């Protein structure tokens, strides 16, 4: 599989990067005349794949989208796509015919045969939801020029799960909220989000934990609210409020326990720069503190982009792709996801990588 070492977008920090890591717009679309994926036979699923692949924009000569057939890829590659936020967990765990088309810059990707025939996402660094939406619509327009999309006069875009009908759009922002966690304010955020029909999830979306203090906030409602109104609420109210809330929590921490905070940040960096064995959870925890330290101006010499990239590179499949000679001599043989253990060799390799990147 010909993916770059890390998502090219991840190192670029966008607007409000101290809190907002990335913005995403995802559209679900289904073709008419075919059953939804869950009801389709494998033959029909292959037909859907071929149909989508034959569309002008999806072909390799079209728009530079790379087509990856998941049935023909290794479990390590599938896991890499998942760690990169290009496909869902459900998608890599399935065994039926499915594929993902990915743009060269990885900002646009299309899952074919996930829960819906097509799930296209635009993923941008920082708070750039409007731009993500603009690009998603641009792509959607090209799609509907060539494919007949299932739409209902009353229910709008039809989806396999009726809770997604209407706009069938999911806006989400990935937020770094160590301040709210350290001040025990996360529960209030969850309750407020619930009242606003927003979902709060972990680093890897549905069912994942909030590893590294990352939280993904997304809309739940897709019916009765237009995309532009939803976007206006998200960009104009919801995100700025959470960002302000997190910054306030950080200010309180600095005001009340500056020394303790500095100590934690520097200890975290110290650990990352000198540890010889690093577990995944431990890495995420320390990287989160270092990220907070950078945002607070405590670590002027550590680039945010490097830390941002490390959040991905310490993940099991990413770690396996790094050329061994570039950081250490530990050779890790390719294994299936079930065997991607956090064993000693893996932890040694991770520690070597982090030391190399953070100048330990």
């Amino acid at each position, binding site marked *: 599989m010909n993916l770059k070492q890390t998502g090219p977008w991840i190192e670029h920090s966008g607007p409000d990067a101290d809190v907002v890591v990335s913005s995403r717009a995802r559209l679900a679309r289904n073709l008419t005349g075919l059953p939804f994926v869950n*009801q389709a036979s494998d033959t029909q699923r292959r037909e859907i794949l071929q*149909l989508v692949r034959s569309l002008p924009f999806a072909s390799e000569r079209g728009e530079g989208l790379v087509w990856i057939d998941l049935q023909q890829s290794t479990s390590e590659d599938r896991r890499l796509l998942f760690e990169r936020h290009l496909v869902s967990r459900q998608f890599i765990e399935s065994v039926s015919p499915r594929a993902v088309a990915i743009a060269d810059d990885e900002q646009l990707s299309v899952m074919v045969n996930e829960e819906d025939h097509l799930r296209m996402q635009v993923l941008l660094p920082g708070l750039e939801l409007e731009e993500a939406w603009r690009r998603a619509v641009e792509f959607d*327009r090209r799609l509907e020029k060539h494919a007949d999309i299932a739409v209902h006069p009353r229910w709008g875009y039809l989806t396999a799960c009726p*809770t997604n009908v209407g706009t069938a759009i999911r806006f989400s922002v990935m937020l770094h909220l160590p301040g709210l966690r350290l001040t025990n304010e996360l529960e209030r955020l969850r309750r407020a989000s619930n009242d606003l029909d927003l979902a709060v999830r972990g680093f890897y979306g549905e069912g994942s934990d909030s590893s590294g203090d990352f939280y993904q906030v997304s809309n739940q409602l897709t*019916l009765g609210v237009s995309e532009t109104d939803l976007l206006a609420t998200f960009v104009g109210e919801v995100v700025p409020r959470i960002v302000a809330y997190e910054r306030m929590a950080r200010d309180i921490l600095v005001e009340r326990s500056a020394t303790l905070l500095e100590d934690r940040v520097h200890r975290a960096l110290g650990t990352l720069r000198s540890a010889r064995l690093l577990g995944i959870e431990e890495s995420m925890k320390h990287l989160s503190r270092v990220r907070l330290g950078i945002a607070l101006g405590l670590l002027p010499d550590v680039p945010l982009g490097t830390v941002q990239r490390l959040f991905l590179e310490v993940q099991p499949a990413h770690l396996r792709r790094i050329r061994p000679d570039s950081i250490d001599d530990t050779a890790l043989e390719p294994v299936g996801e079930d065997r991607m253990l956090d064993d000693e060799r893996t932890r040694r390799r991770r520690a070597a990588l982090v030391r190399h990147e953070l100048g330990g």
Partner: protein
Amino acid sequence: MNTKCDKCDQPAEVHEIDVEAGRDVHLCREHAVEAGFQVPQSAPVTELLTQFATMPPPGEKPTPRRAERPTACEHCGATFARFRKTGLLGCPDCYESFARQLEAVIARSQNGANAHVGRVPDRSSDLVDLQALRRSLIEELDRAVASEQYERAADLRDRLNTLTADEARG
């Protein structure tokens, strides 16, 4: 129709007119396939089972409630019971088949909203035809490859590529 196959005693399933010979041709499924006719697939077993399961027992008239609320989608055979279990519908037509039940489900999950507001595709009238053409070309190509008719497959692939290039331009 109770016509027998021209070549055996099985009931004929394919009825064609042989223009050159100037006579009718009746063939059973097996002999029709042998003679190179495209025989439509019978309904999938699951669909038959669903139809069977939703049929009222002999002698019992369907109740109006049953008639109002179908338990299986006519188009894809998915049942509402399956939807309750998985949360997923079988095809776009399920939205019509289970219209009454879904109204409540959707309203509950969407804060009471009952109609779409926002973007809809700018449809062009010949789109459906193009998609159908593309599908039939792909199906034919599959068949050609499966039966090792490589020249025909190459020809079909060219037609598909031309269609793609035309669309890309238009």
